[in-house]
């Protein structure tokens, strides 16, 4: 067995599991800058990547890290970086470039208390909106949120697959608690891990058009050095990849960047539902907060209250269709997140007054006290 997929049973932190997921997914390039609470990812990457012939480079800042990722991807890498709030802010510049050039890459944001330097060593979940639209302009990305080290492993692989499939940056929204907690992680045999690589050019150079999309709105992607002699730019461009800074070129380009995710959302979205059938009230949560909700759910279900739960494995694109459907059947959604209201506004928008939408907020620094969630539920029955 080569050292790439460490098939077997492990006991790992969420941050370590994320690294193993990346390596199992074929990541061989990591560029990053140290920041708490993501450091264990960089540290383990610096050990693991050389073992599999990959490149770990510690860049001078997060601007450089993210730019290096985009370059690496165009040279054929499945690249990754990891950071936390302040660094994530700096990365937004070239996350925008990656979105515009349609570059597959994975960015891990281990969320901590914020804004600004905030709480470097304590949990937060307030980067959810930044993950979606942190860079300027209209674009769509994909974001996943693991609730355990096992999911950190699984979702990191998934993030690579989605990034490659849809040619977007995929964001893994870990949080400080999941990043730092240790649990059992089962790594499957290499043959059982399904991997996706970007669509490759099907035409010779003379006929190839860099940004001519297929039906799924995703174009084929050549790699530097293969002889395609392509040109790509962060400017608004035509299907050849040449700058065309007109409103005429802007509309089809930006629309496609957005539509390739929005129109394919149902293929990307991954949510879990429990106890939905008879539910009058549904909890919606993600990341570490989902586990607190589950703890509360066990309690209220044994009290006989008809409460269900939705776990957002993918946060972006948002599961609009399903939430809309459920809004018609229930009395209320209760959104639990470690921020003062982010996903709750999405739920409220989609529920559109069909049912109540209630937020159980937390300013950050710790997970919710289960009592706080319990009391909100109790009030509804």
């Amino acid at each position: 067995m080569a050292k790439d997929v460490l098939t077997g049973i492990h006991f790992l932190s969420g941050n370590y599991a994320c690294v193993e997921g990346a390596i199992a997914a074929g990541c061989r390039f990591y560029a990053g800058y140290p920041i708490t609470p993501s450091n264990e990812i960089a540290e383990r990457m610096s050990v693991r990547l050389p073992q599999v012939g990959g490149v770990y480079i510690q860049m001078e800042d997060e601007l450089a890290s993210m730019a290096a990722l985009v370059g690496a991807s165009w040279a054929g890498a499945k690249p990754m970086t990891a950071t936390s709030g302040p660094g994530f802010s700096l990365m937004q510049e070239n996350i925008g470039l990656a979105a515009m050039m349609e570059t597959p890459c994975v960015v891990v944001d281990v969320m901590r208390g914020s804004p600004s330097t905030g709480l470097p060593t304590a949990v937060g979940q307030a980067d959810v909106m930044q993950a979606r639209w942190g860079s300027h302009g209209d674009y769509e990305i994909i974001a996943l949120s693991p609730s355990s080290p096992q999911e950190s492993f699984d979702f990191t692989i998934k993030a690579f697959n989605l990034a490659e499939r849809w040619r977007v940056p995929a964001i893994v929204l870990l949080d400080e608690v999941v990043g730092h907690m240790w649990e059992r992680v089962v790594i499957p045999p290499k043959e059982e891990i399904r991997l996706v690589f970007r669509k490759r050019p099907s035409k010779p150079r003379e006929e190839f058009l860099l940004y001519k999309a297929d039906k799924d709105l995703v174009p084929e992607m050549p790699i530097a050095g293969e002889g395609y002699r392509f040109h790509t730019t962060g400017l608004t461009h035509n299907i050849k990849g040449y700058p065309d800074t007109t409103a005429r070129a802007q509309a089809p380009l930006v629309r496609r960047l957005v539509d390739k995710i929005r129109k394919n959302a149902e293929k990307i979205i991954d949510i879990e539902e429990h106890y939905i059938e008879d539910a009058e009230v549904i909890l919606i949560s993600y990341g570490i907060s989902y586990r607190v909700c589950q703890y509360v759910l066990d309690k209220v279900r044994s009290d006989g209250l008809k409460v269900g739960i939705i776990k957002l494995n993918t946060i972006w694109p948002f599961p609009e269709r399903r939430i809309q459907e459920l809004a018609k059947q229930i009395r209320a959604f209760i959104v639990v997140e470690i921020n003062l209201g982010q996903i709750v506004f999405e739920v409220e928008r989609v529920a559109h007054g069909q049912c109540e939408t209630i937020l159980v907020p937390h300013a950050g620094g710790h997970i919710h006290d289960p009592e706080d969630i319990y009391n909100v539920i109790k009030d509804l029955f």
Partner: protein
Amino acid sequence: MQIKKEHPLERLLRRERMPHILCTGCGIGTTMANLVEALEEGEFDLDKISVVSGIGCAGRVAGYLNLDGFHTTHGRPIAFATGLKLTNPDLTVIVFSGDGDLAAIGGNHLIHAARRNIDIKVICINNFTYGMTGGQLGPTTPSGTWSSTSVYGNYEIPFNLPYLLCACGATYVARWTSAHAHHIKNSIIEAMHHKGFSFIEVISACPVYWGRKNKLRTGKDMVKFFLEHTEIKRHPDPRDALIQMGTPILCGVFVNEKRPDYLDMMKAQLSKKLGISEFRGDGKVTLPEEEKKVVSEMRPPKEIKLTQIKLAGLGGQGIALLGLIMGRAASIFEGYSTVYTQEYGPEARGGASSSGLIISSRAVNMPYTTAPDILVIMAQGAFRKYRKDIRENSIIFIDKDLVRPKNIPNSVKVYAIPATRMAEKLGRALVANIVMLGFFTAITPYFSVESAEKAVKMSVPKGTEEFNLTAFKEGYEYGRQYGRA
């Protein structure tokens, strides 16, 4: 007579993108032509060349060359190029951009790429200004001269780029003006053959902004000015390369030296240790097969109720490792749902160390130990801190020489062992945590001796396994006797 239809340089330019946006008399266009000539003359494999630009007039060049071209974000072409090069070292990566892009907003990347000696070739157009945005002040605008944001004359000192780059460790540094076509071309060829960070500064004409406002209205005026105010030396000293009005612009090759580049340094450090000869980001490296050592089978867990365990002591007592080993024993070898957390943040400073463990045969949702059933305490300070968590019927494990439990309910069961003393007797106080682990294993039902021993073996430093297992046995025996007494 045969009429040749193709321009000699057409192979390298994207004809469909012509006319270009560059102004008449601009030095960027001529430098681009010099680059094209260099690539023709040097007979390089054009399919393997990537050209990366940032933002600005010079940044447009990547779009005109018939190569793999990347027009990136402002200031980041060098960082982008670093990703390209380290992913596929077979590529030749050229960065073509301006002074504002490379030395102002991208200054940090410039100096660090030079320091790392990343094998990329940087052509830096220095026209003293931001042309694209209307002639504003830059980090290279000569003192006293006009820009649209220094209309009274610049009162800053500009960068001396050759000196900066030499100091940062670039291994090829040259400067020419856009009037020195031949020298630029030769320098580019030299840089293409050079392995390491190469930097060619081209003092370039921007007649439209910097020139016009500083009494050099046309491209011709500027070329004339450059030719008249240049001093070319064979071995110029970069310390003398500051550009000041009234003194000549010093040109030449400042440095051309051999030094291992980033990837060479990486290989030198890693190859022997890891048995791998190549490192690249695209995964095209064959890996050696190794023997499989990981655990692959898990037994179904026995039924137990959820138990919270708090471990606390001083930094250096191996509290974190103790928790990790317990976690591994319970999780990997006994099949329990197990969550292990360490305390982070301010609490983790000042010498205290604590971690939490939750073990259950059912799924564990809450990650933290909020109401510990068991406390393992190795220092008096830790006892004071966590006494509030000790309730009726709690179980506590203590190092009996280091902890005096006071004011606790009568129903609390105290298991005391002189763990540190026993460890010292074995020769190293450091293994007191492992002695405690043995003791804990003997008394509690969460993992078997075999599981604990396996977890110890996989967690302690190589070579110390036997010693740690001896410590474990000592503690375990003490626990067994304890049970009987």
